[in-house]
């Protein structure tokens, strides 16, 4: 009897222990698991926000992160970038995950207004729901900043929502990136990064008079609101990398410089703000995809016949040569060989010979340092020449480097120098 009683008690005790254990089993792992997913979601979101470079536009020069206020000048008017910190009054504090998805995927604001395509939802629409939610979760976690930004100043009639509706119907193709099953997983990841998160096409395609991309492929175009030209990522004469080894593409994207090329202008800024922080796998995936976009025809350069030069052109270039010897040769070398990885070679450099010539003109006018990155922490720089030599001399020296050492490019005029001026970015 006593045995049965004690057995009974032990049985109860065991039941209690079991019950507590069961409670723990349910609650504790669930708590840990829930906490873990929120944190990893935010961490993933932080990374994806870097890749999408949200801060690049949503932070004003010297301003607070994600608080907006940066002004983008376009032919359609002046757009003021919004505050995307979680401040309730002036930021996204009252937005839900669904509202954020509406904006990113459909190009519609919380209140149902159509957003202007200066916000690249035309590219962000390729982003998966899971990634969009992670980005939102990260943005909810950043320090809220109460900052009221000024209103857009959009020229009539572009401020009309109905016109924007028509524009969307005509030009906006909504839809998450669909993997191409004939290609590798790596290629698909690269395509997703380039076309979606990285929104490379926003700059690397030409825009028509309505500000819409003319082509699905990144064939190069003037950057709206900037005097820089975003080169074609396809053409072997511009920035196509079909003939480069994967490692060299990765090097340029991650450090801002390699043996052949150096990033400058807005691209240098994007390397600093975003691309250098990509994981090695993502950098490689991007490179694999970009390589596949590029033309393969290596002979195109050598096939071109260089026509004989008239005497007057020869004289023009000779004046350029003497300016080169005085100002450029110390760093770029007598035969334009440069110091690869430090001072870019000019011989065979596509950025030098490219049409239109405004990027090389801007490099001479404004100079610049390649971005500080983990792979290139103390970059070398080029001084600005805009206040050192006159426009006519700049046009002569640029015409010279475009046609020396086997290079072949159009001559540039002092007018073209002047037209390439202006705009900080």
């Amino acid at each position, binding site marked *: 009897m006593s045995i049965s009683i004690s057995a009974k008690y032990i049985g109860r005790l065991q039941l209690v222990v079991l019950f507590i254990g069961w409670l723990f089993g349910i609650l504790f792992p669930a708590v840990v698991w829930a906490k873990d997913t929120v944190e990893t979601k935010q961490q993933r979101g932080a990374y994806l926000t870097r890749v999408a470079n949200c801060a690049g536009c949503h932070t004003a*020069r*010297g301003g607070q992160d994600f608080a907006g206020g940066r002004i983008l000048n376009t032919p359609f008017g002046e757009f003021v970038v919004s505050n995307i910190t979680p401040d309730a009054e002036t930021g996204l504090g009252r937005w839900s995950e669904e509202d954020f998805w509406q904006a990113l995927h459909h190009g519609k604001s919380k209140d149902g207004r159509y957003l202007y395509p200066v916000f690249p939802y035309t590219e962000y629409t390729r982003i998966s729901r899971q990634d969009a939610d992670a980005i939102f979760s990260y943005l909810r976690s950043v320090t809220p900043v109460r900052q009221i930004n000024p209103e857009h100043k959009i020229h009539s009639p572009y401020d009309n929502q109905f016109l924007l509706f028509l524009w969307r119907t005509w030009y906006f193709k909504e839809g998450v990136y669909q993997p191409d099953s004939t290609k590798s997983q790596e290629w698909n990841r690269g395509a997703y990064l380039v076309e979606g998160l990285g929104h490379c096409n926003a700059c690397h395609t030409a825009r028509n008079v309505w500000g819409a991309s003319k082509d699905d492929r990144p064939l190069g175009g003037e950057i709206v609101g900037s005097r820089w030209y975003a080169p074609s990522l396809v053409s072997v004469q511009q920035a196509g990398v079909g003939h480069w080894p994967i490692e060299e593409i990765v090097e340029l994207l991650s450090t801002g410089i390699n043996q052949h090329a150096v990033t400058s202008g807005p691209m240098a800024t994007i390397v600093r703000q975003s691309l250098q922080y990509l994981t090695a796998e993502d950098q490689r995936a991007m490179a694999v995809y970009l390589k596949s976009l590029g033309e393969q025809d290596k002979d195109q350069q050598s096939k071109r016949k260089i026509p004989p030069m008239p005497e007057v052109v020869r004289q023009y270039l000779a004046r350029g040569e003497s300016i080169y010897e005085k100002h450029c040769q110390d760093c770029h070398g007598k035969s334009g060989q440069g*110091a690869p990885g430090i001072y870019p070679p000019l011989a065979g450099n596509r950025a030098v010979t490219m049409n239109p010539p405004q990027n090389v003109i801007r490099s001479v006018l404004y100079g610049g340092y390649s971005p500080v990155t983990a792979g290139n922490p103390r970059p070398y720089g080029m001084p600005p020449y805009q206040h050192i030599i006159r426009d006519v001399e700049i046009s002569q020296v640029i015409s010279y480097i475009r046609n020396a050492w086997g290079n072949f490019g159009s001559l540039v005029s002092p007018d073209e120098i002047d037209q390439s001026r202006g705009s900080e970015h």
Partner: protein
Amino acid sequence: MRLLILSGILFFTSVAAADAPVEVADTIAERVKSCMLCHGDQDKTGLDAYYPRITGKPAGYLFNQLRNFRDGRRYYQPMAILLENLTDEYLQEMAEYFAAQPYNYPLPRPHALPSATVQEIQVLVDSGDATRDLPACSACHGADLMGVKPFIPGLLGLPSAYLAAQFGGWRNGGVMRGQVPNCMSEIARKLSQEEVNALALWLPAQAASGEPAEQDVLAPEMVERCQSIFSARRMTKP
């Protein structure tokens, strides 16, 4: 035939020699070479040139200016573009390099100011004007106006045109826009145009010599008043 081979070899070796990469020193001096086109050459930092010298100025002051240019608080487009993609750490290395460079000050340039004006200026420099809440220039810029380490620049050996432009910038909010309150903006706004003109002529006439003073010469109330100048992050070495 032998000659042909020999000339062939000579041709290719000469091509190879011409194509050898330019040798580049792995030094900070080489890395800031692009600054020297405007700021380095003694001839270009003479009294009439607009580019101020940067060698020998206090490191903290230079570092603050570099950051201000980069972040748009001090507006000058060529500097903003040049520094766009550089980090605080790298800018600090550059600032320390220039601060450590010896500098030969230009000879004083005599002014033709009437003696009454000179007397007024001297009062402003040494005592300020309490009725307008103007501190003495020397209270911040050092007793001999050679600056105070590490944040306050000297006032001597600078071109007249540069000084006048800086005063103009402060008065119109152009030099340090967005950074308020800025003590120098307040001071410049209280000065009359005549005083600014006279200062821009009087300062270059003073002989520059010696080093910036050490920070402990500054009165606490001046440090308080010019807080924005002393707020450099990560200034490890003065």
